[in-house]
């Protein structure tokens, strides 16, 4: 064996030695990542599941509402009105002729609403006084309101059509309110769910997975032997970040792909900018993960802490599922401390509105500041000390 001595010592502090050690640690981390089923589950299977779940199962839109249209006296006019419901993508229509059977269906929750067109509808319509009754199953107030609005819309369209066909409009012409949603013209909830999905996946990989693998090293005692080598504490921190950063970016790519081709969400900002702000958020998440695991040194405590500090706030307090403006002031103030809030805002802006610099710049600056502070803190708490 070679004689150890001074020349070898200066080598350990050289840039090339640092790079060699870093490469070895990253390689080790990557092997472990691919051989650990739980890492694969959290890093790859969970994001795919989340995409499928958010994309197909979880939707805040109301579509294919089962309704009963009761035509007490079928006629060409009433059939025309009914067809407005049948042809609508929002309704799944059943045509009936008696009100009691429709009420039965409503009580059994086989339909969520009833549109009742009385036997004298056609005659009254001609006298300028056509009335249709709308009954909605109201246990879910939100949904009920949406169904009510849809039904009114369908009837309004019927009126408009009649007016256009030259029938006498009641009381000087039907006024149909035309509404339009800005940025989300289709009023499709995927438009804002997909950016939220990106936040969840980046948080999951960045903070949750990193905290688990670092705490595991403390638990298994693998760091004890590693510390008594020329390796520097900073190299351990960076080697933990690199593979999970790459994995996080892959998750991002997966989400963008799903957004574009699966959910057809428009993307109006620049991809470069999106990558940039995602990098900032991922760095924040990684730093939080490393910080928590270095402080707790136990997989169980670290994963619980990460869940509470990062994942749940990202889900509920970032403005992605629930509007922050309708929250109590105290929680609104608290949300300013959450990195996820800025990232959600950035993503929604970039996806749906475009490169709005007055939004992007301040939010990105906050994320950059958080990343710098948290990384410095994570580096400071990771020392080559056991206690």
């Amino acid at each position, binding site marked *: 064996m070679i004689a150890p001595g001074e020349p070898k010592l200066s080598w350990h502090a050289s840039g090339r030695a640092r790079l060699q050690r870093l490469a070895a640690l990253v390689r080790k981390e990557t092997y*472990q990542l691919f051989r650990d089923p739980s890492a694969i589950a959290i890093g790859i299977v969970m994001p795919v599941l989340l995409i499928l779940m958010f994309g197909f199962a979880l939707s805040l839109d109301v579509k294919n509402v089962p309704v009963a249209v009761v035509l007490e006296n079928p006629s060409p006019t009433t059939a025309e009105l009914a067809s407005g419901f049948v042809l609508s993508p929002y309704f799944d229509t059943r045509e009936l002729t008696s009100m009691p059977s429709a009420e039965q269906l409503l009580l059994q929750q086989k339909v969520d609403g009833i549109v009742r067109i009385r036997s004298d509808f056609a005659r009254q319509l001609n006298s300028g006084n056509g009335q249709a009754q709308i009954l909605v199953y109201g246990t879910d107030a939100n949904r009920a309101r949406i169904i009510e609005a849809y039904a009114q819309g369908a009837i309004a369209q019927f009126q408009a059509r009649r007016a256009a066909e030259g029938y006498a409009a009641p009381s000087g012409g039907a006024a149909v309110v035309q509404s339009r949603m800005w940025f989300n013209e289709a009023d499709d909830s995927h438009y804002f769910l997909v950016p939220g999905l990106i936040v969840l996946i980046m948080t999951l990989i960045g903070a949750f997975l990193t905290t688990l693998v670092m705490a595991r090293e403390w638990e298994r005692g693998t760091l004890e*032997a590693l510390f*008594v080598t020329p390796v520097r504490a900073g190299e351990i921190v960076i080697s933990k970040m690199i593979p999970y950063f790459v994995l996080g970016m892959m998750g991002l790519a997966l989400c963008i792909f799903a957004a574009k081709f699966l959910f057809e969400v428009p993307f109006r900002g620049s991809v470069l900018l999106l990558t940039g702000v995602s990098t900032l958020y991922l760095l924040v998440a990684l730093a939080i993960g490393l910080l928590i695991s270095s402080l707790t040194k136990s997989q169980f405590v670290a994963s619980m802490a990460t869940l509470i500090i990062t994942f749940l706030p990202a889900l509920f307090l970032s403005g992605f599922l629930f509007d922050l403006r309708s929250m109590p002031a105290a929680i609104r103030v608290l949300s300013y401390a959450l990195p996820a809030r800025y990232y959600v805002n950035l993503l929604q802006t970039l996806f749906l509105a475009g490169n709005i610099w007055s939004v992007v710049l301040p939010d990105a600056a906050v994320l950059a500041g958080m990343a710098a502070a948290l990384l410095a803190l994570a580096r400071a708490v990771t020392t080559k000390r056991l206690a």
Partner: protein
Amino acid sequence: MSMQPHGGVAVLGRHVRKTFRRETGETVVALDDLSLEVPHGGLAALVGPDGAGKTTLIRLIAGLMPLDAGTLVVNGTDIARDPQRVQDRIAYMPQRFGLYEDLTVRENLDLYASLHGISDEERRRRYPELFQMTDLAPFTGRLAGHLSGGMKQKLGLACTLIGAPELLLLDEPTVGVDPLSRRELWEIIARLVREQNLSVLLSTSYLDEAERCDQVFVLREGKLLASGPPGEVTALAAGRSFEAEPQAGEPARNLQSRLLDEPAIIDAVPEAGRVHLVSAQNGKSAAPEQSAAALAGLSIIPVPARFEDGFMVLLRQQSGAAGKSLAAPPLSPEPAARSDETIITVHDLVRKFGTFTAVDRVSFEVHRGEIFGLLGPNGAGKTTTFRMLCGLLSATAGTLRVAGFDLRRARASARQHIGYVAQKFSLYGQLTVADNLEFFASAYGLRGRRKRERVAWALTQFELEPLMRLPSGQLPGGYKQRLAMATALLHSPDILFLDEPTSGADPLARREFWRRITQFAEQRVTVVVTTHFMEEAEYCDRVAILDGGRMLAVGTPAEVRGLAAAAGPDRATMEDAFIAIVERAREHRMDASP
């Protein structure tokens, strides 16, 4: 070729102090004003009872913890000032070496080679050398997690050696390693010291290992009791060591047990059918037959002192009654004659895991009141056999009767008669000692007065009363094991199973443990035990040696030693016998297989 730029001193400690705070708020002094000098080159050993501060001292030298006071200079560098500089040039193997179990042997080694800045060219030269030394060459592609305990330790050693360190720190490198692997590890270490003039500082609870070192440091409760060549410690017992032959028909362990109660006897251990003892008196007046009633009428011959004898004398000098904290109740005056009633019958027992046969047609019988030892290298099938005997694992084939029940049919009934102490501490760490006992008593179905009686018995018998309000996770090592045994005995089982109960325990704790076991056997409790300490086989009535899932030998310790005597010297120790039997069987199998 070694450079000695630091005046021949590898580690220089002056007034080192280190304290820890327990969760309960009290401060524990791990190292107290400790000064020591480990010379450069050669082997140095740290020995001492549990809690002596061995691991703390090694971690301080490795720069893993800050000192509270004093200075520690490693290879000329003050560890407090520049720990990285020290860590650049030493190597350290923690007690549980942190191998990455999901990396292969080769990948683990590559990682450490890169961390130490070893060039590719140098690796090509060093790897074959390391693989040959550790016999790991056939397993380079295997995941470290799939290696046996002994091989893991060898890989850990290879990983620490790749950086060509100036100083090698090993914390209990042979804990949980079988005698064969232990011997191989020692050969590697001895060769490194001899050929490369490496400095090695290791801690160990095997006193025969300490005896092979150039320097020993005896620690106790954070203080240095003695330092110097092992011969100096051995000399403390000069003229005090004797061997006594028990009366015909009496097990050596009974005589040993009585001798431990004598104030004139410092230490006694059964050995090769006799009892090795150390007298408290020195010089000519040492003749123990005059001072120890238990020895009256027995033939006693003086023998050369061993390191262990000196160690026991040293511990006793320093603390009066330290070696005899055993206030165990006396044995029943008339030891029950051993019956021939068979309590465990194992016949052609087989257990397969997939295509792998862990236990292959093993047969033996255990009689009531017997202490039966299962010995074997790591991976021999001891633990698998054990788990089947306790009904924790079902057998693939064969007959298995325990306490009159067929374990393959009436598992639950058999369990009522069994107490089991696992190798790993498996009690509730957050519950207090008393809570644990209460819980397990209820789990065994004890109620009312009987429950109170048994819990009280356990607290007294195992001297746990002073600690009964302490969470069991915070008990010192030896007490954890006492508690584990106490819980296993709450329901007064007929049979007690102990899986490597003394692994990692210091010599004092091991004596205390066997003292209790001897008592239980006297009370007609049958004890089945596995161990890696071959000298402990001497406490057993009969032992069985397993390797590769097969039974190689079974019989009394004398008979087993006799099997090896044909091949070796006639006063072979149990360890020699064990190694000879296992190696012979392996050679035989290799001859037969191709």
